[in-house]
Structures are given as C-alpha cells and as structure tokens.
C-alpha cells in the first residue's frame, strides 16, 4: 500500500504539517513569512537566502515534513523521485528578472538562475542529495489524479518515495502543498477515518484532494 506519510501546507495565513497548524505569520517581524518559518524550524542552510520563493517553499516543505511529521527520509540517493506543479511556472521571478535590468540597467545572474520553475527540484536534490527522476508540470489547478497516477507508477517501478506537490506563489498569493508518499507494508484498511493517528493517509485521488483542501481551496 502507498501512503502519504507526511504533508505540509504553507499559505499566506499559516504553515501546517499533517493538517496541524505550526505557525502563523507575525506582522511585527522584520523578516519575510518564509524566513519566519525557516527560523521557527531552526533550519541551517545559508543557500536558502539566495533562492527565489518557489525554491524556498520546496526546501521548507521537505524540511518541515522531515522535522514535524517525523519522517527520517533516509532514502538511497537515487531512491526518491520528485514531482511538482503549479499554475504560472516561474512568472513572479521572471518579472523580478525583467525589473532587474529595466530598473538597474544590468540583468541579474543571481535572479536569472531561478527563471525556470523546475529549479525547485534541483534545489531539493542538492540539499538532500537525492538524484532520482524529477519533473515539474504546469497545469491550471491542483490535479490529484495526475499526482496519484505519477506516484503509483514510480513506486511500482521501484523508487522508495515520491516527494512533490503544488507550489504556486505570486505577488498576491501563496499556495504550497507538499507531500511525501511511500510504500507501506500492507495492513487492514479501516473504513474510516482515512487518516491514521500518525497522520499518514492512504494514497487515493479523493484522499489526496481531501488533504490538499485542508488549508487550500
């Protein structure tokens, strides 16, 4: 059986793991919302500060699941496949890059390197040293059928885990939902509830949509 053994939401209003709210943004903080989460989780990764918001969201999601869903994530280097999606690719960073030469008359290489959405998978791969297959898809809205099918196919093919999710960030809105899916030894399937005490959820289109919608609509 495949289960979603940990998942994380980050919106403009909250940060939650396995449905439980961990933190809400402090209006008095001198830091950005993502930096507040970084500090809260006590993550030590200086490269984080150079990343664009998409890559930061990916790193935060993976680390929050590891820390607060208590998943060790001790997979083989090539045992993890990554699959992410969003609605507008890297449009927000593309606009920042455009502004960097419109406003300052010099294009910024540091911003340019983030003008592709799949950089999020590269940054997670570098951080965790995971060198499995990775995919980034642009789609109009979160599609639980796509993710469920992807997870099932890749785990059937032998990968130890799939990490992925929906990471849509622009100037007005933050929609982050990141999950860890792993094959779990077969056990009796309870009729209800779908969520076990440890927060794990058995994989299915309905179940994936249900946990996505806990903090995103």
């Amino acid at each position, binding site marked *: 059986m495949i289960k979603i053994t940990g998942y994380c939401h980050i919106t403009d209003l909250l940060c939650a793991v396995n449905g439980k709210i961990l933190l809400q943004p402090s209006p008095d903080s001198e830091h*950005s919302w993502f930096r507040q989460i970084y500090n809260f989780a006590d993550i030590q990764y200086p490269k984080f500060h*150079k990343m664009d918001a998409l890559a930061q969201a990916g790193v935060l999601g993976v680390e929050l699941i590891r820390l607060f869903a208590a998943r060790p994530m001790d997979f083989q280097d090539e045992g993890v496949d990554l699959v992410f999606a969003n609605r507008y690719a890297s449009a927000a960073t593309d606009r920042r890059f455009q502004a960097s030469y419109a406003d300052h008359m010099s294009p910024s290489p540091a911003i340019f390197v983030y003008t592709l959405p799949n950089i999020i998978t590269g940054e997670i791969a570098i951080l965790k040293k995971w060198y499995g297959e990775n995919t980034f898809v642009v789609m109009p809205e979160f599609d639980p059928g796509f993710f469920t099918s992807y997870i099932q196919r890749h785990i059937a093919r032998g990968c130890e885990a799939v990490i992925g999710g929906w990471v849509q960030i622009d100037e007005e809105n933050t929609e982050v939902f990141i999950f860890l899916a792993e094959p779990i030894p077969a056990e009796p399937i309870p009729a209800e509830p779908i969520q076990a005490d440890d927060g794990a959820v058995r994989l299915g289109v309905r179940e994936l949509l249900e946990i996505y919608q806990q903090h995103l609509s």
Partner: protein
Amino acid sequence: MDQLKEDLKHQIIEQLNLEDVTAADISDDMLLFDANGLALDSIDALEMIVLLEKYHGIQVVNPEEGKSAFLSVNSLAEYIRQKSN
C-alpha cells in the same frame, strides 16, 4: 565602525538579492563562498564583479585577484583600498 565594510555588506545584499539577510548577519571575516558562510557560488562571483565595477569603479581583469579578493568582506575592503591607492 569601518564604513567601507558596512557599505560592502549592504551592496552585497542589494546586488545578490539577499532580501532576508541583514548587514548584521554578515561578519567581516565570514567566508562568502563557504557553505557555512553566505554559500555564494560561481553565479554570485559574476555579481561580485558587477558590484565592484558598479559601486567602486574597479574592473576585475585577473581572475586570480578575484579569487582572493572575494574571500570575505575584510578581503574585499582591502582589495578596494589597494586599487583605490
């Protein structure tokens, strides 16, 4: 306070788009390209070259010079002072 070093910290933050980093986060001797420092990389080295030209009118033409100058804020300040004399 060494004003040149303080200015350099602000210029690094501005040029490298380190939006959530403050000058106080960067110590004078922090290794800028070390994973435990600012974790800068080769792309950022390009930004540092742009920074030196934009803010200080210095063109780095010898890559070996850049390698030692970009170690830390201390070495950057020293490099700028040498070039300005």
